[in-house]
């Protein structure tokens, strides 16, 4: 067989086995999850906003991702005195999670990952990805349906842990990115 014919056959086999990545579904899930995240964070901050200690605002932003293209999102701005904290979606195509949102202030950055609700560390996710039989079957392409995922705070490496998101943990996270 000529080299060109071999190449043609090879490319045909590649096309036949090409996995159709459901980018649109992934995007929609991530958009809804991000909106839910912002709503929760706003709820956490209501007492502080009511006291005039914080102000929350939103600006338009966008994300560009493989298989999906560019789509509109929102960035949350938290203002306190002279300090500004931005909370922005990074995207749904991240390693070991269904989505990522970052919070950035003058003093550092905190990462929020959208992971299976029961996961407390990356090994749990990677085990699930390998086909853990204890998990229920899911219609989602990657195993855990959106309703069974949760936003968690990811601690920095090397020993990454996922911390449940609640008013206390979010307060700690926000404090860590603000400077004295």
């Amino acid at each position: 067989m000529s080299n060109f014919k071999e190449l043609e056959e090879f490319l045909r086999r590649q096309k036949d086995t090409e996995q159709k990545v459901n980018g649109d579904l992934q995007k929609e899930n991530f958009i809804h999850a991000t909106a839910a995240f912002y709503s929760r964070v706003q709820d956490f901050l209501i007492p502080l906003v009511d006291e005039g200690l914080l102000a929350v605002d939103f600006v338009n932003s966008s994300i560009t991702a493989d298989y999906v293209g560019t789509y509109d999102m929102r960035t949350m701005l938290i203002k306190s005195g002279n300090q500004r904290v931005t909370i922005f979606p990074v995207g749904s195509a991240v390693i070991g999670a269904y989505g990522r949102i970052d919070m950035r202030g003058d003093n550092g950055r905190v990462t929020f990952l959208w992971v299976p609700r029961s996961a407390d560390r990356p090994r749990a996710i990677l085990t699930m990805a390998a086909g853990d039989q204890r998990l229920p079957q899911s219609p989602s392409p990657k195993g855990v349906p959106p309703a069974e995922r949760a936003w968690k705070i990811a601690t920095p490496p090397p020993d990454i842990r996922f911390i449940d998101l609640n008013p206390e943990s979010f307060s700690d996270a926000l404090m860590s990115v603000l400077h004295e």
Partner: protein
Amino acid sequence: MPDAFIGYSHPELAAHFDKQGEELNRTMCLNLIAAVEARFHKDYLERVYNRKKDPLSRRLRNVYAEHGHRASLDEHILEAWKEVDPRTKSAVGEFKGALKFQHWLAHGRYWVPKLARAYDFFSVFTICEAVESRINFIDAIYSA
């Protein structure tokens, strides 16, 4: 999959490996230049200890008389090579330039180096290979 990559986006992962590749590139440059540096020093001491009589060896023995083990590779040893054997001028000159790059790599990279050219593994390898092929080192009877 190392846990450290959890949460990385694709561009971040690519940037991470680009950075690692660049650091590996620089580490190899450091090691290559150091290896050739050692060749020059060993050759210098061999000529001195064995009281070689050729013009270069006599020149280097004079350097040793004045500076001993503290002879500078750049100012004394390489200059001796260039003066006594002009055929080596180009290879030695290029190597002297690479030494400046090695100095910057080895000493913390905290300043903007004034280098005659950009260096990477391939250019440093070419320079070191030219030294090996054009310089008649006296092989030391001792080696690391």
